[in-house]
C-alpha cells in the first residue's frame, strides 16, 4: 500500500508541473454512442489492466436507448484497491461528436485526450494534452466494410491507449482472445486493429506528456471479473433454484438471462432433461404469481425485477406474506419514481420493498455489497425463504448488477439446504393431524405440507383472506390479531438468521458511518481519505440485512454521530433506523444522500462529512 494518497500525488504533480509518472492510479473514460460496439473494446481494455495484476473497476454509463445516444465507459485502475467510482477523469477517449466538447470541458487541467481527429477538439482548451487520431482512416486500412470499420475503430483506440499507458501487449491479446472466444475471424481482425493502434501511437504520438502508466502488480491473482447479476444468477443455481419466472426490465433482465445460460450448461442431465423451469412471463404480476405458485407447491422459486416491477407485484407479495409462501425476489434497483432513469443507479426501493403490500407487512431483505455477496446471499435467500415461509427480497442495484467487478472466487456453499418446516406423509402418520398456522415451536413459524402429499390429513386451504391456526376462513377479531402477532414474532426470529452486519470500530472514533450495498465502496475509500487528510477516525457499520440486529443500538451508543450514507433522496434507510432506535440514539443520525443517478464516490462522502463536522455538528 502506498503511504501517499492518490490525491496527494496529483497535487504535487500539478504544483511542480513536472512529468512525474503516475503509476497504476488513474481513470480512463471512453465516450462513444451506444450501439457502436464499444463494449467489447472497453472490456478488453479493462481486462488487460486486470491481467497485469492491477486492481480495476469498470462502470458503464449508458442511456435508455438501443443505438445512437451518448454512452460513457469509465475504467478506474487503483494500486490501493479502491474501486468505487471516481468523479475525476484523467484520460479521455472522445469518440462521440455530440458530447466531445462537454466531455473535454469537464476535465481537470493537464489531463489527456485521445480523440477522433475530425472532431477537431484541440482548440477547445489550452491546458490539456490532445492526441488527434484518424481512427476512421486507420480502420479503413483494415477493411472496406463500413459496419466493421466502426467496430474496429473501437479496438484501435484500445491499442492507442495501451501504447500510451504501457499496457502489456501480450495481456491485451489474451484479453482480446477471451472476449471473442471461438470466433477466429473476429479475433484476427481485432488483433490487427489493436496492432494498428499501437503502431500509430508508437510512431506518431509523444507519450512523454502522458504521466499515466501501468506497471505489473500482483493484486489480482486468482481473482475474477463478473457483474452482480451474473453472480446472483450463479448463487441461485448453486442454491438449487428450480423455478425462475421473470419479465424483462432494466437493469435486472440479465440476471434471469444469465441464469438460463448457466442452467443450460450445468442443470441439464445426460438424458437432456432439465432440472428446472425458466419462464418469461407476460408481466411482473404473472412473474411473481408463478414464482409464488411454485413456492407454494414446494419448488425453490424466484423472480427478478426492478422498481416498477416491485410496484406491480405489491398485491401478490402481500398475499405471499400473509399466506406464508416462500419466494425469492431480486430487485436490481434503478432510479425512480415512475420510469425514472431506467439505466442509472439508485438505492431508492428500500421502503417499497420492506413494506411491500397494503396492510401491515414487514419483509426480510438481504443487501449484498459485492459480487461475491450476490452469490452468497442468493444462496442464503433460498434457505431463509423456506425456513421463514415468507418472501425474501435481495436488493442490489444497477451499479452492482450490470457493472463488472473484480472479486475473489466464490466459495462453494458447503452446507445442506434448509428446506424449512415441511411435513411429509410419514410425519402426518405419526402426528395424526396438523394445523398449518399454529406456532408449535414458539418461533412464529408454522408447519406446512405440499400438494401431492399422500395423506388424508395433508390438505389445507391457502387464502389471502382472514384465517385461523387451522387455515380455516375466519373473521374473528382474536383469530386475526393472533395471526398478525405470530407473523411479527416470525419477523423477530428472523433477526438471528439474516446475514449479520460487518462492524468495524476504529480506535478513538467519535463518529461512524452506516452504509449498505454498493455505497460500501465509497465508504471504505472515504474512511481512508478522512484518516489521511483530516486525521479523522471513522468507524463503519455495514448493514447487510433487514430486520436489523441488536448491534445497531450498540453502534449508535458508542458514537456521537453516525453518518447514514445512502443513494436516495429521502433517507429511506435512516428513516427505518430511526424507528428502530430510542429517540436519544436516533438523534445521532446524520444523513448523507447521493441521488443524481451516478454511483456514489468517496470524495462526495468525505466532503459531506468534513462540511458537517466543521459546521459544528453537536
Amino acid at each position, binding site marked *: 500500500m502506498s503511504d501517499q494518497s492518490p490525491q496527494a500525488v496529483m497535487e504535487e504533480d500539478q504544483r511542480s508541473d513536472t512529468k512525474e509518472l503516475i503509476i497504476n492510479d488513474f481513470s480512463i473514460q471512453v465516450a462513444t454512442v451506444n450501439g457502436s460496439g464499444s463494449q467489447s473494446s472497453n472490456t478488453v481494455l479493462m481486462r488487460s489492466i486486470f491481467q497485469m495484476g492491477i486492481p480495476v473497476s469498470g462502470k458503464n454509463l449508458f442511456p435508455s436507448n438501443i443505438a445512437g445516444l451518448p454512452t460513457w465507459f469509465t475504467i478506474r485502475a487503483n494500486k490501493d484497491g479502491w474501486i468505487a467510482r471516481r468523479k475525476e477523469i484523467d484520460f479521455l477517449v472522445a469518440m462521440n461528436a455530440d458530447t466531445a466538447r462537454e466531455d473535454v470541458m469537464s476535465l481537470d487541467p493537464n489531463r489527456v485526450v485521445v480523440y477522433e481527429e475530425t472532431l477537431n477538439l484541440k482548440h477547445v482548451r489550452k491546458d490539456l494534452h490532445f492526441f488527434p487520431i484518424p481512427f476512421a482512416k486507420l480502420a479503413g486500412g483494415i477493411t472496406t466494410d463500413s459496419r466493421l470499420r466502426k467496430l474496429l475503430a473501437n479496438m484501435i483506440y484500445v491499442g492507442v491507449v495501451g501504447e500510451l499507458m504501457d499496457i502489456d501487449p501480450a495481456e491485451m491479446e489474451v484479453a482480446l482472445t477471451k472476449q471473442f472466444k471461438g470466433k477466429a475471424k473476429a479475433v484476427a481482425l481485432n488483433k490487427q486493429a489493436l496492432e494498428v493502434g499501437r503502431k500509430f501511437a508508437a510512431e506518431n504520438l509523444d507519450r512523454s506528456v502522458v504521466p499515466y502508466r501501468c506497471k505489473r502488480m500482483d493484486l489480482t491473482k486468482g481473482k475474477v471479473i463478473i457483474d452482480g447479476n451474473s453472480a446472483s444468477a450463479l448463487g441461485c443455481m448453486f442454491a438449487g433454484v428450480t423455478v425462475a*419466472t421473470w419479465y424483462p426490465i432494466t437493469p435486472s433482465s440479465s440476471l434471469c438471462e444469465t441464469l438460463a445460460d448457466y442452467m443450460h450448461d450445468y442443470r441439464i442431465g445426460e438424458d437432456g432433461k432439465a432440472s428446472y423451469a425458466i419462464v418469461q412471463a407476460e408481466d411482473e*404480476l404473472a412473474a411473481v404469481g408463478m414464482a409464488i405458485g411454485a413456492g407454494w407447491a414446494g419448488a425453490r422459486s424466484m423472480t427478478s425485477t426492478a422498481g416498477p416491477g416491485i410496484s406491480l407485484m405489491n398485491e401478490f407479495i402481500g398475499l405471499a406474506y400473509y399466506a406464508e409462501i416462500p419466494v425469492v425476489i431480486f430487485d436490481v434497483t434503478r432510479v425512480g419514481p415512475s420510469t425514472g432513469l431506467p439505466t442509472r443507479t439508485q438505492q431508492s426501493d428500500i421502503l417499497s420493498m420492506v413494506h411491500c403490500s397494503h396492510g401491515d407487512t414487514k419483509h426480510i431483505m438481504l443487501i449484498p455489497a459485492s459480487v461475491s455477496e450476490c452469490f452468497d446471499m442468493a444462496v442464503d435467500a433460498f434457505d431463509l425463504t423456506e425456513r421463514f415461509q415468507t418472501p425474501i427480497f435481495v436488493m442490489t442495484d444497477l451499479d452492482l448488477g450490470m457493472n463488472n467487478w473484480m472479486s475473489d472466487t466464490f466459495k462453494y456453499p458447503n452446507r445442506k439446504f434448509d428446506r424449512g418446516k415441511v411435513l411429509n406423509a410419514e410425519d402426518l402418520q405419526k402426528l395424526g393431524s396438523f394445523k398449518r398456522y399454529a406456532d408449535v415451536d414458539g418461533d412464529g413459524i408454522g408447519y406446512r405440507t405440499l400438494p401431492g402429499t399422500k395423506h388424508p390429513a395433508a390438505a389445507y386451504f391457502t387464502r389471502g383472506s382472514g384465517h385461523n391456526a387451522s387455515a380455516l376462513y375466519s373473521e374473528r377479531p382474536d383469530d386475526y390479531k393472533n395471526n398478525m402477532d405470530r407473523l411479527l414474532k416470525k419477523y423477530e426470529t428472523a433477526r438471528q438468521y439474516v446475514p449479520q452486519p460487518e462492524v468495524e470500530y476504529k480506535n478513538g472514533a467519535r463518529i461512524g458511518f452506516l452504509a449498505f450495498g454498493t455505497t460500501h465502496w465509497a465508504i471504505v475509500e472515504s474512511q481512508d481519505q478522512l484518516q489521511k487528510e483530516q486525521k479523522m477516525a471513522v468507524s463503519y457499520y455495514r448493514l447487510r440485512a433487514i430486520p436489523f440486529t441488536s448491534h445497531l443500538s450498540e453502534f449508535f451508543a458508542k458514537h456521537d454521530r453516525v453518518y447514514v450514507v445512502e443513494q436516495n433522496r429521502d433517507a429511506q434507510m435512516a428513516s427505518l433506523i430511526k424507528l428502530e432506535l430510542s429517540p436519544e440514539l436516533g438523534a445521532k443520525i446524520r444523513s448523507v444522500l447521493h441521488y443524481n443517478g451516478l454511483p456514489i464516490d468517496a470524495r462526495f462522502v468525505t466532503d459531506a462529512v468534513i462540511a458537517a463536522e466543521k459546521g459544528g455538528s453537536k
Partner: protein
Amino acid sequence: MSTTMQPPPPKNVNRFGLTLADYKGADSTLCAGCGHDAITSQIIRAFYEYGVEPHRVAKLSGIGCSSKTPAYFLGQSHGFNAVHGRMPAIATGVMLANRELIAIGVSGDGDTASIGMGQFVHLLRRNIPMIYIIENNGVYGLTKGQFSATADYGTKAKSGDMNDLPAIDVCTMAIELGCNFVCRSFAGDPKQMVPLLKAALAHRGTALFDIISPCVTFNNHEGSTKSYKYAKDHEELIHEISFVPFFEQITVDYNPGEVKEVEMHDGSTVRLRKASHDFDPTNKGEALNLLRHCYDSGEFLTGLIYVNEEKPDFLTQLNMVNAPLATLSQEQVQPTPDDLKEIMSELM
C-alpha cells in the same frame, strides 16, 4: 393366496376405493340456489366417478363468489384462493413445481374476462395442463350486481341499467389463442356437465369450461340472458355426450354416422351423439363458425365445442425431468464444487 376368493368390490366406491363423500368439501356459504353450487356438485361427482386421488389435486381460484367454491369440494385436496384475476399465474407456478398434480381452477366472468384477462389469455397461449372453469353469471355478485364483461349487449341489470357494451366471448377467444379443449355448459344441466368434466380430466392441456351459472340474487330476473329461466328456455344441446374412461372399455352398438368418437390423451373416449347440429368439434373452423353463429343469433348452444388431442402442453415443451421439480434432492439440483471451479476459472 391365489386360491383365496377375493371379496367382492364394495359398492359405491370408485377405482381408488373412495366414496362420493370423500370428494366433498366444506358447506357452501353461497346464496341458496346459486348456480355455482350446482357446478360444485358435478365436480364432486365427476372426480369421484372418474377416480382421481384427492392428494394429487390442486384447487385454485382468484377472487369472487366463484372463487370461493374450491373450499366446497375435494376437502382432501390442497387449495389456494389467490388474488383477483391472478389464478392463472398461480396455476402455472404450481404445475411447473409439480407436474404430477391435477389442477382445477375455478374463476368467474369478472375474475377472468375483466381483471384477469391478461393472465387468462397467456395461460391459454401456454396451454398449461389444468381444468379452467368460468362460472359465468354476467355480474359481480360479491359487490352486489355490477355488469361484467360477459354480460350480453342490451341485457338489463337488477337496478334497471342497460348493458350497452358488447360481451366478450371467452370460448371464441380461447380457441383463437390455441386452447385445445373448449366447452360451454349450463349449471342447470348436470347430465351434460359430468361427462364433459371427465373428458377434461382425460385431456392433457388447458380445458376451458364456460358454464352459464345464474346468480339468483343479482341476475336472475326478466331481461337477463343469464337467468335460469332464460337459459332453460334457450339451451340447445349440440350433441349428447357420453364418456367411456380408459379403464372401462365397454362397447356399445350404434349406427355409424350417428355418433362421433374422440379418443382422449389418456385413452378414454368421448362419444358425441348428434342432437341439434351436425357438428365436428375436432374442426377448428367449424367450432369458430358455430360460436360466431351463437353470438350473432343469441342461441345458447351447449356441449363440447372444440377438442384437439394432438398439441403438446407447456410442461412437455419445457423438457423437464419426469419427477416433480419440488421433489428433487439437493444432489439433483446443486452443481458440484468442480463446476463452480470451472465457472470461476472462465471468469479469471
